[in-house]
């Protein structure tokens, strides 16, 4: 059910997203006033501020927003697929596979392009592995998929540790940044945005079925939902969204787990609303987190994944408390 209260939530999130962009564009080592920023956005100048804006800040804010949106969307889908409140985009081992790919690229001294593609390949390998094994032995069940994912995840964890302990300290630094999620090298391209757009449009198209599926597979089947097709579709789309996100920014934690829950607690349980809201809030959240990551201990930068946890934990607890009071 969608009420005017829900539309207000959507409008508020859109406004928040725009504010977060402005804040992000204003923060950094080169000072920029709001007036200057608006002038630059309307009429691009070829001065230092303009260059910093176009070449550094805008692409980075865009990368942050896209990553946050992808992760939050993937989180919603995983939670529906597994019907488990603890499900997040990484629970089935996608980030582990991606990490092994990315870390191997770092170990071999390969550049950014290689890192992204190795991460993507690692993620896909993990997706195929988990789904293949979960389907291999007899009847499909959510528990089987979840357990397979968790076990494969643990396996990747071991490989990651091997890579970390055997690498030079130079490499370990970049590896740790990747593992915690880092946007300093991130750029989004047409492909990333297409995945995000396809994800939300496809999700909206299926949103009514998602509403039913959340209540359990038997109920959904009895109400006319094609369970087998939905399982496969949800698994593959959540995987693609997550793989795309980790390709952009490494494994940024927390966004995919907490943003969907925050929105549900705020009353956005209907997927027609929850999906677009997740992208907006997930994106906004990461844009702000990244702005903070760049400025808190400037000129040094924190990995954005650290900041998402620092601001995510208390704000989630506040909302949780509010919802219990009600």
């Amino acid at each position, binding site marked *: *059910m969608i009420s005017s209260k829900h539309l207000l939530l959507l409008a508020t999130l859109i406004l928040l997203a725009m504010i977060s962009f402005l804040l992000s564009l204003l923060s950094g080592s080169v000072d920029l006033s709001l007036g200057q920023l608006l002038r630059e956005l309307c009429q691009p100048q070829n001065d230092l501020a303009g260059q910093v804006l176009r070449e550094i800040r805008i692409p980075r804010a865009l990368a942050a927003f896209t990553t946050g949106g992808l992760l939050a969307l993937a989180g919603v889908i995983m939670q529906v697929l597994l*019907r488990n409140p603890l499900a997040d985009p990484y629970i089935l081992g996608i980030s582990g596979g991606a990490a092994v790919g990315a870390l191997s690229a770092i170990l071999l001294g390969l550049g950014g392009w290689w890192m992204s593609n190795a991460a993507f390949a690692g993620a896909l390998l993990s997706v195929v592995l988990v789904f293949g094994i979960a389907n291999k032995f007899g009847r499909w069940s959510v528990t089987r998929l979840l357990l397979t994912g968790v076990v494969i995840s643990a396996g990747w964890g071991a490989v990651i540790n091997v890579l970390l302990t055997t690498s030079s300290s130079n490499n370990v630094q970049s590896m740790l940044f990747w593992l915690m999620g880092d946007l300093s090298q991130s750029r989004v391209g047409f492909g990333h945005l297409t995945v995000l757009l396809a994800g939300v449009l496809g999700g909206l198209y299926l949103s*009514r079925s998602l509403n*039913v599926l959340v*209540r359990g597979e038997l109920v959904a*089947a*009895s*109400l*006319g939902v094609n369970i087998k097709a939905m399982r496969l579709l949800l698994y593959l789309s959540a995987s693609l969204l997550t793989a795309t996100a980790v390709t952009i920014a490494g494994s940024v934690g927390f966004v995919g787990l907490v943003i969907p829950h925050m929105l549900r607690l705020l009353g956005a349980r209907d997927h027609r609303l929850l999906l677009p809201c997740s992208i907006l809030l997930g994106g906004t959240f990461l844009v702000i987190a990244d702005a903070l990551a760049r400025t808190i201990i400037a000129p040094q930068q924190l990995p954005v994944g650290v900041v998402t946890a620092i601001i995510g934990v208390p704000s989630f607890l506040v909302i949780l408390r509010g919802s219990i009071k009600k």
Partner: protein
Amino acid sequence: MAILELNSLSLRIGATQVCSDLNMRLQENQRWGLLGKNGAGKTTLLHALIGLVPVQSGEILIRGIKLENIPRQELAAGVGILFQHGISELPATVMETVLLGRHPHVQSLLRDDPGDLKIARDALQDLKLSELADRQVDTLSGGERQRVALAMLIAQTPDLFLMDEPNNHLDLAFQVELLRLLDRKLKQHASALLMATHDINLAARFCEYIILLMGDGEFVNGPTEAVLTSENLSKAFDCEIGSIVGQGRTFFYPQ
């Protein structure tokens, strides 16, 4: 034409033969009871009737059309089922849950049809849930949750109601209330009902026909008076069951 027709249906779950060569025709306005001891396969039979469990052999026809040839959504618009185990515990309000019953009928992707909202509200009223409409389902009692599940089924407005222990968790007054409500709904929409239950006396009172599963693939089906005899019941439940006549009705009790 029969709403539901089973032609020499055989069904097996694990090591249990639920039924072999079961033939039956369930017509509009008929009320059928499905009885049998624990593990005899009542739930499996109900699930098979909407294609959730594969059958061994035989065919299931819904209004003359083979089950496997009916598109999912069309089937869900015509046949509704009440599951024995309730709905999941992820947060949702009572109204949101009941409105899901309209899923098979929904036309618009993004818009909620006022007609659907009205049907859901009426269903809430039928089950005396109107005051709880905005409550979270996970804050409700067992009986209230059962009523939410029943309201969802009523909102689905099926031609054929399949119900797995509908009086689970309901107090005595509400059990009677529910039977009255179902009676009214069946008459309103020329629909039919098949309910699995452990309450022999309730089935005797409410159902005109009975399928009694013996637990080994054998069964007895037909008009209630013919099927519900001490002899049949004792055999089906592995327990001596006696009967007593009072107030013009026959009551059954374990001896």
